[in-house]
């Protein structure tokens, strides 16, 4: 793959400057947003690239697992922070679930589906990152949606409890809606993938010189892997929340 030099990066930055300038001429000031976004993108990605370079060249389990571990903690912290106000401990629960789900998914896909041998960072880290990022979004979306729905529909939940419903029976509708909300982006993406847009991984592989048909097969595996990781994460966090939302006397605590 052709390496991009400093002048190439500078020319790419010009694209941002042009659209920000055009917006300004139209009467919308995006200068600050544009500057911050450009700076953060550049620094974050160059930083990750620099850190990952040695990990990729040395191919050692410890380094790979370390990078994946840090990614999980950041994902758990970011996603958890968003849902922590729902119920104390949700952030920790989400982190633990993300760790378990992404380890399971990554192991299954790399060892059984793809057949990766040994500590190959170029498979493990990108795939792990995609699983984590998506599962984090799905998990925090599900948790937030369920929490908000149950709070909003408190009357309905208690009407069901009052007629003898168990907590699971009383929250079947909020749970269904939360799971749908969490999985709809992935399910929609599976419908249009390849037709309306080429996904990032496939694009990346083709840029890297891979034959499109081979890249397509990877993308199929990735879509199934994402649905599994997102769905399992959402279901586990929802079951955890549902259990914690009621006490032993089946009283709603949210």
């Amino acid at each position, binding site marked *: 793959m052709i390496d991009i030099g400093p002048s190439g990066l500078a020319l790419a930055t010009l694209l941002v400057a042009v659209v920000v300038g055009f917006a300004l001429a139209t009467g919308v000031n995006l200068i600050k947003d544009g500057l911050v976004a450009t700076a953060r993108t550049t620094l974050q990605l160059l930083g990750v690239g620099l850190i990952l370079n040695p990990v990729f060249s040395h191919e050692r389990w410890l380094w790979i697992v370390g990078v994946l571990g840090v990614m999980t903690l950041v994902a758990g912290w970011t996603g958890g922070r968003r849902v922590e106000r729902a119920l104390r401990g949700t952030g920790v629960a989400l982190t633990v679930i993300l760790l378990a789900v992404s380890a399971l998914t990554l192991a299954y896909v790399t060892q059984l589906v793809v057949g990766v041998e040994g500590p190959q960072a170029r498979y493990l880290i990108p795939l792990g990152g995609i699983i984590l990022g998506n599962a984090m979004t799905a998990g925090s979306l599900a948790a937030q949606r369920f929490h908000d729905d149950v709070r909003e529909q408190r*009357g309905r939940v208690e*009407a069901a*409890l*009052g*007629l*003898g419903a168990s907590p699971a029976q009383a929250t079947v509708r909020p749970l269904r809606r939360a799971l749908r909300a969490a999985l709809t982006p992935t399910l929609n993406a599976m419908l249009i993938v390849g037709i309306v847009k080429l996904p990032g991984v496939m694009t990346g592989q083709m840029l890297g010189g891979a034959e499109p048909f081979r890249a397509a097969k990877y993308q199929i595996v990735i879509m199934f892997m994402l649905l599994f990781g997102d769905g399992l994460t959402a279901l586990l966090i929802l079951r955890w929340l549902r259990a914690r939302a009621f006490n032993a*006397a*089946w*009283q709603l605590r949210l």
Partner: protein
Amino acid sequence: MRGVRLTRAGLGAEPGGEAELVFAGLDLSLERGGALVVLGPSGGGKTSVLRLLNRLANAEGGAVEVLGRAVTAWPIGELRRRALFVPQVAQLLTDEGTLADELRAPLAWRGRAADDSALQAALQAVGLELPLERPARELSGGQLGRLALARALALEPELLLLDEPTGALDVRTARELLGRLGAWAREQGVTLVLVSHRPQDAASLEAQAVVLLEGRIYGPFPGVELAAGDVDDPAVAAFLGSVAEEGA
């Protein structure tokens, strides 16, 4: 056997719920198969009494006994299958269900099925003569309240806790509904505790009534006497006077 007994029962603010009047030391007693109307001004804690009885809320101190056992001694699922609470604001239990779906949903929670004739009978008992295949979302507020009541009747409760079941009904319809309900309860041997702000409801139900005023229980009085304003206690008389003024 006792249907319901509160002994020095107190109630605190509920976690996550609306702040409700905090009261202590309530005493209340009702024979099994009997009917009792709890009257009082809104916000006075009437609903909380019902919530204690089906353990949607916990008593702070004192004892709450339902159907011969302390509420805390019942396995919670069993208590709530025997002692049903129907809230003031009727709720749909399904997203797009028909009347039949609404009536069957809580039966299904218990693994029970019901044929159409049983569902029709439940609707008839509350005077809601509508086809079972009618979408529940099309019901008016008053009809929805009756559907919620029919849903509870179809579950064959032993104790029925009703929060303002006549709130959305005019005086005549309320009297007719409570007449049917009282007859049904006596026939089935169901214990009935009903919360209302309308003294007339106690007379319509041919039940005893207590008045809950500022955390204190007055009574029981025969419902007919309360409805007629025939009470000596000045606090209760003042409450009845304020209700009569509102009605006028």
